[in-house]
């Protein structure tokens, strides 16, 4: 069925009459980015109500369009003010685990160090695997009206695939192998989320924030240039995911302040009732022990490693609280779970 009755000539041609606002975006300094096409009736500020069809924002609706099942009707449910910029950055900063890591710098390590690195990589490849599934799970619920958020999530899926593969590569490239599966890493909480904002605050802000704090200590954890580069490149990607989550939370709190207690509730569960270590927990013994060995420099320096691990944990918790504060949830500092509270810096 055509959208309009057929004309006498047998042609419809109604599609020629839709362009009341000609758009001529011009490339900016960073090329033709989504920012450049965020124009007039096509821009995100012109978003009208939700739409359960596949119609992208700014596209003229078909009267006979079928619905595709429920999705978020409110922009606040999925939006982040920086998603346009973050998506473009993601596209520009894609990297290759095959070619951009100096694998030739890997060198034989003492057995216990190699095992510790392989154990850490076993955990990380597992964590990153879930980090790709989780945004995937939510994509069908992101309205095409907010497609920039969807594009960003699709770029995140690609990032997480690369992280999954790079840590597997490291474990299998230097005379080691994969070791013990992680367990109780707090990953179920991510899959269990029943709301996009719940998922985002647990995955983007908490779990990826913890991983990001750890990657930033990659200079201490990594033993070779290859490992240090893996952590640096991965941290660059995690920064984007984290930034999306922080700004999404901020958008929700700015536009729907009545959701504040609900969000605290999700965090109460993750920090207290679950494993206690939060999502992406690094206190699972094989992970904790391997980190202590890597940070200390060997099994015989485990105690020194333990002290550095505690500093890592402290850094994770305080950076986490700082991010929540930036998002507008500064009162989390007073409500944080007991295993987190011990590390909180005084204001």
């Amino acid at each position: 069925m055509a959208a309009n009755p057929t004309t006498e000539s047998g042609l419809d041609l109604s599609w020629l009459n839709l362009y009341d606002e000609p758009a001529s975006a011009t490339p900016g300094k960073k090329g033709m980015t989504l920012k450049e096409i965020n124009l007039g009736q096509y821009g995100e500020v012109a978003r009208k109500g939700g739409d359960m069809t596949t119609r992208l924002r700014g596209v003229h609706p078909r009267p006979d369009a079928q619905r595709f099942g429920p999705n978020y009707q409110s922009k606040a449910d999925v939006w982040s003010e920086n998603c346009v910029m973050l998506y473009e950055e993601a596209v520009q900063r894609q990297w290759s685990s095959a070619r951009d890591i100096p694998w030739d710098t890997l060198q034989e390590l003492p057995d216990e160090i190699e095992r510790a690195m392989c154990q850490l990589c076993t955990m990380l490849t597992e964590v990153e695997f879930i980090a790709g599934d989780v945004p995937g799970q939510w994509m069908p619920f992101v309205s095409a009206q907010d497609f920039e958020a969807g594009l960003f999530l699709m770029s995140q899926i690609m990032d997480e695939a690369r992280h999954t593969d790079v840590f597997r590569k490291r474990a299998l490239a230097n005379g080691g192998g994969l070791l013990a599966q992680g367990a109780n890493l707090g990953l179920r909480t991510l899959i269990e989320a029943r709301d996009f904002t719940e998922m985002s605050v647990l995955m983007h802000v908490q779990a990826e924030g913890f991983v990001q704090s750890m990657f930033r200590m990659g200079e201490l954890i990594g033993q070779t240039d290859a490992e240090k580069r893996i952590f640096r490149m991965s941290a660059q990607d995690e920064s984007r995911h984290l930034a999306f989550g922080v700004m999404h939370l901020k958008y929700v709190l700015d536009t729907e302040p009545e959701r504040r207690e609900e969000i605290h509730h999700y965090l109460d569960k993750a920090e207290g009732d679950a494993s206690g270590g939060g999502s992406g927990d690094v206190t699972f013994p094989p992970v904790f022990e391997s980190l202590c060995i890597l940070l200390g420099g060997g099994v015989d320096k485990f105690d020194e490693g333990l002290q550095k691990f505690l500093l890592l944990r402290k850094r994770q918790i305080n950076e986490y609280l700082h991010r929540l504060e930036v998002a507008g949830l500064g009162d989390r500092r007073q409500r944080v779970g007991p295993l987190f509270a011990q590390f909180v810096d005084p204001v």
Partner: protein
Amino acid sequence: MSTTEALAKMAAGQSATSVDVPQEARDKARQLGWEDGLIELALSKGHSLQEVWQALRGGVSGEQAKQFLAGGQMVRPEFNWMKVPTEWGVKARASDPELGLAIGDLNIGTYGDIPDTWTNRSEIARGSFPNAIVEDMGYTIFEKAIVWADCIVPRYEEAIRDRWAPATDLRWTSLAPLPEETEKAVCQVMTELSERSYFEGALLSGWLPQISYGYLELKLFLSTVIYDLAKMSEAFRKRALSNGGGLGLQAPTDYMRAAKEARSYPELVAILFVNDSAQLTFFKHGDLFAQNEFERELYALCARDRQRHMDYQVDRLKHFLYKMPERREEQNLYFNKGENRLAKDWSDAIVNEPLALLLGGGRDKMDAGMAKLAEFRKLQIKEYVENLEKATFFRNHLNGRFEDILAN
């Protein structure tokens, strides 16, 4: 601040009385035989809650904890994870220096065993040592025959190697004004392509959590497909908004609804096969529709991406039919549905008129354009049938709508 100073400051900042011990820690302590008050004793002696927690997670018994707190020797971890019986001594090396260390290079020894049926219901990394008790993560796809194709291992790395950025890899400044109706036709085509790409990316994303870790490489490859589709959607939208036009009318929804309605992965990919193939033909022959060098380059990049997707489609179907011959006839149902709905979309004036205008060279040459489009549709169907045949699938009867296109 030095590490020691920082830790001293941290320890000074907490006391046993100020720490709220989580219930889970108390439950764990009870399981390990810690007497009531032992946690508080540890805290009062200056140990942090984190250290207590690590001791509990590490399985330190109540007796061991008591002895340590009474001045005994510290309980050392046993590092059991160092002794798990996974394959050790693996040194993967790049088999193709141009491509670098590829995921295919990791498939050595037991790490290359991709089982026909995967039984672990957790997110375990294939080849690592399974934990005895783990939660079910909810995956539903555990059969290799359903999802696998050997080609995805090299295609994953090729997708990363061949990445492109719509913002900077296309010559936006080369775009020059087109006749108004031609520009509108381009914009309508771009609108439809953008919607279909975004929809397919979102749809495939939703299937990722169904696939278990046994088929890791497939999930990695699908991630590149999803990302490719995001990029395509972005690029088509940008083209529509950069040359004096705009976005047109929403694409017809029949075909996309059919894909959305799929109840299983084989049904999903069978339905997607139809349009993936048709789009590949379109992009490969993009010169017929392109109005300038910019569009020719855009279509060529999309063709390269779509070819990888099609390689997967063909290889997966072939592998699936070989492993599950009893499901061969069932596939006809899905292909028939996909063909029917896509042909219905093709018959929509919003879809065929802009293409006819571009093929004909203007509104005044629509008859010639329609004739060329009819021939092009035949080509799309012919190449689709050829793709099916490469997968050893022979459609005795295409859907009637497709048959009609071929007959006219």
